[in-house]
Every structure is written in structure tokens, then in C-alpha cells.
């Protein structure tokens, strides 16, 4: 029966193919006589044939009746649980049947030239039909709807059982009643030429093989393929999870107790073998298996290996490799064997699976890279995993892009303090150095961070102050999260910095360098070599060298003036450190500054020793507290520098009451040419100090060859002891103007004083100066204007000092703008509140004023007139302009650095003065 006929038969049932019942016993189907032929006479050509047809029909009828399958199956119930068995009748062939079979199978009744249906074909159809009518409905019960995951196993197992039974049912008659005949007629002969996939030693076996195939095909077609694959894949996955003890999210734990891995494995193997037997193995099963293994690998990695070893800091990659080798790989092999796969598992696949697992682990790790960086170095294990992962192709790309995004989202936003960003950046440097010592990745990842840090105003300040911070002395207190100091940076300073000397500028041209290596192939053009571990280097190179050094100059200046450490060790070290990294030619100014302060100490000592002898006897007391101020071209190079000097006067601690009577002055002599612009408010210092300054000046001129000193009274600090009626208080670290103001509350010549009253000591400087003088019995009262006049001091400074003293409960605001000394504290309870309020105010003001180096705001105030002239000139000549353009012109033509707010402030000021008017829309014009 040819293929075409079969296809046709599926649509238009052809009796000889589709007949489902054995041919009934009937009169032999003689063919009709053809016209012209003698009726009833023997056929002229094919008498033999006619006879054969009759005989074949008879035999057919007998054989098919014998072989037909029972219409019902007993005990095949549709529930999943109970086992059923088809009852397989043991049929005995009678002689008649025997003959018929023999005749049809190997005798003359064999179909010839594929024209008639063979008995084997009929039987195949019979089985097919039987399956459709009897078995299939049962199976469909299981598969019609989605298979619940919990039932996956039982459904599969049930299905497999049913199929197996059906298979047995169909095969048995075939084997018992058909095979013997076939085997007899065709003794086994090797047929190597036959190109079937399986080995078919002879036709008989070929026949049964074919039959088996047919039956299996029926089974396969009976199941919905996708659902089957899904279910099987789930079952395999679940088995895998149990065997490898992968715990999925919520449950599974208890179940696992009942099913140990070995039993699971057995069950799995038997199921797979069974499926394979009934023909459900093969392609779909492999597909399902591949799917399951893919999921198993993922689950395994996420359940076992995403855990980071925070304590031992070990990577998990080696274990993962072991798992793949000893768990995953054998499992795959086992299953493939069960499924009877043609393709065996190649050993090379082990490697590729390991790589696959590694890259999955790596990707999962990279997704949380930012957290690992934050928790460096407890996360070392995870970082090492990623390092391993980087060997996978494409991994670097993935790491940089993913991590950059994380950084962008989690770090570089306005909510993060600069200190925090710096700390994280340092951790990034360390973590990436571990990842890849060459620093290519780091460079790529850090670029946005560096750019962002550059934009922050306070970055340089924090870095430099942190570098100067004393790790031990601060006791960690200052390094809280919102502080201005970065603990990480301070720690960096503590590290030995030995290795940096190896890296000289022209490393590339050093032909004797035996350790030279080419740049990494994936480096970007501006990649700089090595130094990857040198955190300080990274921080110092954030800016252009000049910008950084300017900033350094300002901060160092401020710091040096305030610094208490007599030896300036940290400062010297920092400068050396920076010199090594940035080259020393640019740091001349900083060096001069450092030398200035050191030199000042020496000169102070010299001058004091010379003063000590002639004046008083107290020279032995505290020689380290001289204060001097002077134009000190102490450095050899700058002859012409104007030696402006901030003076800071020092008062020495009163060693005894007598010494305390003599204020002392220590000055710092500064070569103003090299220092940043320092604040230089003008005001008068107390008379005693002035005298001291004069004395100091003359001595200095003697020592230093007639160089002049210019005192900068606003710098420096002082200590005073106030002797009031009921108490004596000492204040140190005061601003000079504060000292001046409180000193002004001493009785002036001409004012009456009370004989035995308290004294106030005013002193300033780094040491302590002490003065005592008498205050009059009626407490002295001064108002703001008087003070301004007396001290020639700015109102702002006067007010700031006054509120400082009010805050210290030394003064009281008796009337608006009028202040009185609180001689007797107990008498004035009321003042406490006022004092507290004033203290706060003073603190705010002081913080705004504290810096020795002039701030942007100071500059603005100073340049206000020039700015205003510019604006006026612009508006007069160029006509009305919008505020934005004004700002732009100021920046471009005037080269001023002026911010939008500052400009607004200026413009509003001008508007108040009625010099300009707003024309609307942000446009300004000259007031006519």
C-alpha cells in the first residue's frame, strides 16, 4: 500500500484500510464476469487469481477475527491513583487460524506488490483504532487541561503506565501470533545494506520494530506536545532541585525530608526509562530536559551561590565548578542515558557548562556590585567571583556598563554628601584594584564619578582637610557620616607611602626597565599606567594640577594659621606626598607657606629671648610663645615680595600671677606674595598689644635688616582672662576682634573707676596674653556706634563680637544696641535666655566669618562697586539687557566669577539705589 493511498484513506475511508471489524463470514466475493465472458466459467486469464481471492478472503476473515482486540478494557479506570491492568487474553490458535495466518503472512495470501492490505497493516490499524476508542479517553483525562505542578509526577507516571500496558496489549498478539510465522519464513540473515537507523537483523524483527514505532507514534500523538514537554520539564527540574538540595523560595523543605536524593534519582530514572520504552523519550524529552537543566543551573546559582561569604571572604567559584563537575555533569549523563540519546555527552561540554554557570553567577553578582563595593572589604569573596567572571568574553563590558548605571542611580545624586561619594569612590578604587590591578576597568568606571566630584564645590576642601586630619586625635568622632572629613582618606594618609617613588614620570621611556609591559589592549587613550592602588593619587588628580594647587594653597593657608602642632608634621608630610604625585615645581607657594610658619617660630623665639632680658624677668617662663608678625621674605627668592604679615599675638599661659601681667605676642610672619588673599579687616587692637607690636616690629627690623612688618590684625587668636566682680573666666581661641571689643569695655582714661573692682584681661594670640585691669563699680556700658568709633571696626564685626560675649554671659544688651558688662552674674537671671539666643547667633556669624582666607562672599562684597560699575556701563551703553546676558557679559568681558544669585543680589541692590529699573521679563534698564 503506497503512501499516497494511505493519505487518501485518512480522508475518505477505504474499506480495506479502515475496516475495524474482522471481515464477516460471507460468501466468497467472486468477481463479476466481465462482459462477454462466460458466466460462471473459469476466468480466462486469472482463474488462479480468482481462486486466490476467495481463499484469501476466507483466511482474512478468520485471522482478523482471531486477532481483533477486545473492545473494552477491564479495570482501566480513569483515576490517577490505582494501578490497572489490561487483561490480556491468552488466545489459542486453532488449526484453522493457524492456516489462515500462515496463508496470509507467508503463504500465497501475502499481499503482492503492495496492492492488498497485509495482515500486519491491518493489525496496526486495529491497534490504532483500539487505542483511540479505549485508551485515549483515559489519557486525555489527564492531559486535557493544564497539569498542576504538584501532579506532574503522578500524571507522568500514570500515563507512562497506561501506555506501557497498552503497548503490551498490542504487542503481545503480534509477537505470539504473527512473529512466529514471519520468523519461520525468513531465517535471520544479516542485512547490512538496509539503512534503517536501528539494527534490523531480519524482516521479522523489522516488522515488529515497525509495529512498535507505529504504536509509539500513536502514543506520542495522543499527548499535547507542548504540555507534555512542560510537564516533563517541570518534573525533571523538581527532581534536580531535590537531588541538589536547591531550596526554592517558600516551601520544599519538608518535602525534601520525605524524599532523599537517592530515592528521587531512582524514581526519576525509572520514569525516564519507562517513558523511553513507550516512545515518549526522544526529541521532546530531550528538549524538556535541556529546559529543566537550564533552570536548575539558575536556581542552583541563585539558591546556593548568591550567598556571599562575608566572614571568610572566600570566592564561591571553585565550589561552583565542583558542582558542575560532580553534580551537574553526571546528572546530565545519567538522564541522557535513560533517554537513550544518540548523542553522548562530550567531555568538552563540561568546560562549557562551567563557563555558562560562571557567567550566570557573574551576572548575578555584577547586578549587586554596588553593594559589594559599599561593603568592601567584607565582600571580597564576591569581588573575587567577579574577577573570575571577567575571564568570560564580554564580561568586562557588562561589568562596566552595569556598574556605571548603578553608580549613576545610587551615588551621583544630590542626596549623597561629598564625603560619602569620596568614601565610596575610595572603596571602588580598592575593589576594582582587586578585580583588575591594571586599572583599565577602574578608569572606565570612575570617569563619571570623577567628573561629578569635580563639580562639587567642597570636594577639594574635604580631601585636603581629611588628609590633614589627625586620625588618632580626633578619636573617630569627627568622621561620622555627615561630617566634613572622610575617614577613608585620613586612613590613606596613615599608610606608608613607600612605593610611590618607583613611579617616575617618564616610565615609558625608561629602556632599562626590565619589568616594562605594554599597555593593556583594552585601555582607553588617556589611560595612565599603574598607581591603581594609590588612592591619594586618584584623589589628587581629580582636577587640573593648577586648580588643585590653588585650592590647596587656600586651605593650607587657613590650616597653617590655625594649626596647633608646633612641628607641622602632618603638613610637611602632606606636602611631600603631594609633591611626589604632582611634581614639586608647582608647589613652591605651599612650601614657602610652610617655611614661613616654621621660620616664624624661630624668629619669635629669637625676638623673645632678646626682649626678655631687658624688659622683665619672666623670660624663662615660656619661650615658645612668642608672636611675631612681619614681612618676612624669609625665603631667599622673593626679594620684592611685599611682606605682609598677619600678626597673631600669643599670650602665654600665666605661669604665675606675675607673669600673667605681661602679655606676650607671638607673630606669624608670612610672605604675602605666596599666600592666598587673607582677610585684612581693619580695627584697633588693645593698646597693650599695639605696644607689643611696636616693640616686636623694632626688634624684627633689627634682626631682619630693616624689613617692615604689616600687621594683619584680623588673623590670629587670643586668650583672655576676665576678672569680674563675682567670677573669673578664661576664654581661649578667640578671634582678635572679639578680644578688642571686650577690651573696649575696660574703663577709658577719663572714665571713673572704682578702685578695687575686677579686672579684665584681654589677650590674644596663640599663647595667652593676660591683662588685668580694673572695671569700675558701675558696670561699663557701650553702644555699637561708640565701639565702631573707638575700634575703627566694621559694624558687622562689632555686632558679631558683641553677640559672642552676650552668649558667654559676659555682656548684656541693656538697651537696643547698648551693652553692659555683667559684673554680677547671680543678680541677673534674666540674661540666661538672652545669652543662649545670642550664643547661637554668634556661632552662626562666627562660622560665616571664621576663615582666615577670604571667601567668595568677601570678594563679592569687596568687588561690589566694580561689578556695579560694569553693570551700569553695560546698561548705559548697550541698552536694556536681560539679567542672564548681564551675567554672561560680566563673566566674559570682566572675567569675573560671579554666580547667578550673586548677580541677582547686585541687581536688586542697584534697584534699591534707584540706579536701574526692572523692565519686566528679567530685563533691566538704567533709571532715568
Amino acid at each position, binding site marked *: 500500500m503506497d503512501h499516497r493511498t494511505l493519505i487518501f484513506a485518512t480522508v475518505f475511508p477505504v474499506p480495506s484500510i479502515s475496516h475495524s471489524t474482522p471481515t464477516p463470514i460471507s460468501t466468497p466475493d467472486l468477481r463479476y464476469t466481465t462482459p462477454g465472458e462466460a458466466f460462471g466459467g473459469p476466468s480466462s486469464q486469472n482463474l488462479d487469481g480468482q481462486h486466490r481471492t476467495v481463499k484469501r478472503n476466507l483466511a482474512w476473515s478468520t485471522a482478523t477475527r482471531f486477532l481483533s482486540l477486545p473492545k473494552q478494557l477491564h479495570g482501566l479506570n480513569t483515576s490517577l491513583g490505582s494501578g490497572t491492568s489490561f487483561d490480556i487474553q491468552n488466545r489459542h490458535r486453532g488449526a484453522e487460524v493457524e492456516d489462515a495466518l500462515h496463508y496470509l503472512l507467508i503463504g500465497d495470501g501475502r499481499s503482492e506488490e503492495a496492492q492488498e492490505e497485509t495482515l500486519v497493516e491491518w493489525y496496526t490499524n486495529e491497534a490504532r483504532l483500539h487505542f483511540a476508542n479505549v485508551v485515549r479517553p483515559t489519557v486525555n483525562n489527564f492531559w486535557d487541561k493544564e497539569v498542576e505542578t504538584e501532579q506532574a509526577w503522578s500524571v507522568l507516571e500514570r500515563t507512562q503506565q497506561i501506555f506501557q500496558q497498552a503497548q503490551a496489549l498490542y504487542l503481545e498478539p503480534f509477537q505470539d501470533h504473527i512473529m512466529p510465522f514471519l520468523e519461520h519464513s525468513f531465517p535471520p540473515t544479516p542485512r547490512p545494506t538496509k539503512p534503517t537507523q536501528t539494527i534490523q537483523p531480519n524482516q521479522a524483527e523489522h516488522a515488529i520494530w515497525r509495529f512498535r514505532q507505529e504504536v509509539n507514534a500513536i502514543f506520542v500523538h495522543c499527548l499535547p506536545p507542548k504540555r507534555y514537554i512542560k510537564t516533563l520539564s517541570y518534573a525533571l527540574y523538581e527532581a534536580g532541585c531535590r537531588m541538589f538540595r536547591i531550596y526554592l523560595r517558600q516551601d520544599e523543605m519538608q518535602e525534601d525530608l520525605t524524599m532523599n536524593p537517592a530515592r528521587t534519582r531512582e524514581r526519576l530514572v525509572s520514569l525516564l526509562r519507562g517513558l523511553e520504552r513507550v516512545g515518549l523519550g526522544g526529541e521532546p524529552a530531550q528538549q524538556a530536559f535541556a529546559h529543566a537543566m537550564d533552570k536548575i543551573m539558575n536556581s542552583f546559582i541563585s539558591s546556593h551561590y548568591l550567598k556571599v561569604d562575608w566572614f571568610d571572604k572566600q570566592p564561591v567559584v571553585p565550589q561552583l565548578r565542583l558542582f558542575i563537575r560532580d553534580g551537574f555533569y553526571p546528572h546530565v549523563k545519567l538522564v541522557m542515558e535513560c533517554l537513550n540519546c544518540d548523542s553522548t555527552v562530550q567531555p568538552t561540554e563540561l568546560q562549557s557548562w562551567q563557563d555558562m554557570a560562571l557567567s550566570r553567577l557573574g551576572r548575578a553578582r555584577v547586578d549587586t556590585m554596588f553593594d559589594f563595593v559599599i561593603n568592601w572589604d567584607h565582600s571580597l569573596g564576591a569581588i573575587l567571583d567577579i574577577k573570575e567572571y571577567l575571564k568570560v568574553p564580554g564580561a568586562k563590558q557588562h561589568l562596566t556598563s552595569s556598574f556605571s548605571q548603578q553608580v549613576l542611580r545610587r551615588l551621583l545624586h544630590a542626596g549623597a554628601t561629598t564625603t560619602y561619594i569620596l568614601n565610596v569612590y575610595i572603596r571602588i578604587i580598592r575593589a576594582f584594584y582587586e578585580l583588575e590591578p591594571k586599572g583599565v576597568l577602574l578608569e572606565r568606571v570612575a570617569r563619571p564619578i570623577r567628573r561629578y566630584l569635580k563639580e562639587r564645590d567642597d570636594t577639594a576642601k574635604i580631601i585636603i582637610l581629611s588628609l590633614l586630619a589627625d586620625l588618632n586625635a580626633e578619636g573617630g568622632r569627627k568622621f561620622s557620616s555627615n561630617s566634613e572629613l572622610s575617614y577613608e582618606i585620613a586612613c590613606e594618609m596613615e599608610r606608608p607611602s613607600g612605593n610611590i617613588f618607583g613611579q617616575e614620570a617618564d616610565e615609558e621611556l625608561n629602556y632599562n626597565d626590565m619589568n616594562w609591559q605594554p599597555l593593556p589592549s583594552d585601555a582607553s587613550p588617556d589611560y595612565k599606567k599603574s598607581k591603581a592602588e594609590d588612592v591619594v593619587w586618584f584623589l589628587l588628580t581629580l582636577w587640573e594640577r593648577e586648580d588643585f594647587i590653588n585650592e590647596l594653597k587656600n586651605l593650607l593657608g587657613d590650616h597653617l594659621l590655625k594649626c596647633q602642632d608646633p612641628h607641622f608634621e602632618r603638613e610637611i608630610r602632606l606636602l611631600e606626598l603631594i609633591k611626589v604625585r604632582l611634581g614639586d615645581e608647582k608647589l613652591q607657594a605651599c612650601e614657602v607657606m610652610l617655611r614661613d610658619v616654621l621660620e616664624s617660630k624661630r624668629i619669635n623665639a629669637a625676638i623673645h629671648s632678646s626682649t626678655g632680658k631687658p624688659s622683665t624677668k619672666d623670660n624663662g617662663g615660656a619661650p615658645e610663645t612668642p608672636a611675631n608678625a612681619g614681612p618676612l621674605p624669609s625665603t631667599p627668592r622673593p626679594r620684592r615680595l611685599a611682606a605682609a604679615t598677619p600678626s597673631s599675638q600669643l599670650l602665654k599661659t600665666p605661669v604665675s600671677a606675675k607673669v600673667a601681667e605681661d602679655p606676650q605676642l607671638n607673630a606669624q610672619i608670612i610672605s604675602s606674595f605666596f599666600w592666598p588673599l587673607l582677610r585684612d579687616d581693619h580695627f584697633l587692637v588693645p593698646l597693650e598689644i599695639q605696644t607689643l607690636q611696636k616693640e616686636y616690629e623694632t626688634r624684627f627690623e633689627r634682626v631682619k635688616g630693616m624689613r617692615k612688618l604689616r600687621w594683619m590684625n584680623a588673623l590670629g587668636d587670643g586668650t583672655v582672662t576676665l576678672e569680674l566682680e563675682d567670677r573669673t573666666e578664661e576664654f581661649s581661641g578667640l578671634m582678635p576682634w572679639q578680644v578688642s571689643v571686650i577690651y573696649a569695655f575696660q574703663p577709658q582714661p577719663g572714665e571713673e573707676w572704682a578702685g578695687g573692682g575686677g579686672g579684665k584681661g584681654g589677650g590674644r594670640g596663640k599663647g595667652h596674653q593676660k591683662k588685668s585691669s580694673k572695671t569700675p563699680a558701675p558696670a561699663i556700658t557701650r553702644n555699637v556706634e561708640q565701639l565702631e568709633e573707638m575700634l575703627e571696626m566694621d559694624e558687622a564685626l562689632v555686632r558679631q563680637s558683641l553677640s559672642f560675649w552676650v552668649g558667654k554671659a559676659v555682656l548684656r544688651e541693656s538697651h537696643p544696641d547698648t551693652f553692659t558688662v555683667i559684673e554680677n552674674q547671680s543678680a541677673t537671671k534674666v540674661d540666661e535666655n538672652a545669652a543662649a539666643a545670642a550664643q547661637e547667633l554668634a556661632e552662626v556669624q562666627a562660622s560665616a566669618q571664621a576663615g582666615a582666607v577670604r571667601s567668595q562672599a568677601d570678594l563679592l562684597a569687596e568687588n561690589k562697586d566694580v561689578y556695579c560699575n560694569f553693570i551700569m556701563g553695560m546698561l548705559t*551703553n548697550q541698552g536694556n539687557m536681560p539679567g542672564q546676558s548681564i551675567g554672561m557679559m560680566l563673566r566674559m568681558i570682566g572675567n569675573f566669577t560671579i554666580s547667578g544669585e550673586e548677580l541677582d543680589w547686585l541687581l536688586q541692590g542697584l534697584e534699591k539705589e534707584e540706579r536701574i529699573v526692572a523692565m519686566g521679563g528679567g530685563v533691566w534698564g538704567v533709571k532715568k
Partner: protein
Amino acid sequence: MALSSNARPNGGATVAGRLQKELMDIMTKPTPGVTAFPDDENMTKWTATISGPDDTPYANLVFKLSMEFANNYPYVPPVVLFKTPIYHPNVDFSGRICLDILKDKWSAIYNIGSVLLSLQSLLGEPNNSSPLNGQAAELWDKDPAEFQRLVLARHKTPEELDANAV
């Protein structure tokens, strides 16, 4: 050859530098009644404003001028023109000015401020011996009232100028 090619960039730099300095001078020590400001950041063109001196026909009037600096300034004088129409013996109707220091008497010690001051004083003391506007020179002495009338008739305020320009 080499000289000239070198001279140009250097020249450019010094012109800008000089003008920048002059600007700063003007801004730090402004002269009442006289101001000037660059038109844009390359500084070669400026606009200046002078107000007419009291006790002259030009009292209470404001005049705008344009100044253009060659790239060998200050070795050559700037080109100065009145933008505001002015009736004056030494200024023609297109605003060109006849003033010796803007011509042959120019010297590098002059600067924008001095030029503007000279122009301001020229308003009160025209040089009637070499007029560009003969009628004005004649009327200056003969008929001050008519002169005043003509000055006011010709003058436009900066706002009117701007309106015409647009």
C-alpha cells in the same frame, strides 16, 4: 615676513589686553558723564555714552558713539562716530568727527577715557576754524538761539534711536 606673521597674533593679544585694562580702569574709576562698554567679548567694538556739558546747547542731552579699534591700537586712533544725530560744527550729518587727536595728533598715551573727555569738551568748544558743518559753525556765534533750536531738533534720545534701529 616672519615679523608680520608674528606680529598679528601678538598684536591681537595686546590689543585685547590693553582694551581689557582700559575697561577695568574705566570701571574702577568711572568719570561722571562719560562711559563706554564693549559690544561683545572680542572687545574690538565699543559703544560709548557722553552727556552734554552743562551751560552748552547740549546740556541734558545724551549722545551715543561707536568706537572701533584696529588691531594695532593704540598705535592708531580708534574710529569714533556719533550714533546719535548731532548738530555740531565739527560733526557731519553721518556722525563723522573732525578732531585732531582722532587724526594726526593721535598718540598712544591717549585712551578711551581721554578720547571721550575730549569729545565732551568739543561739544562746548567747537573748533569753528575747520568745520564739517559750515552752517553750524556760522550759527554758533551768530545766533545761539537758532543753534540751540537746531540742536534740539536734530537730537534723538537713545530710546528713539533704538526704536528706529528696530
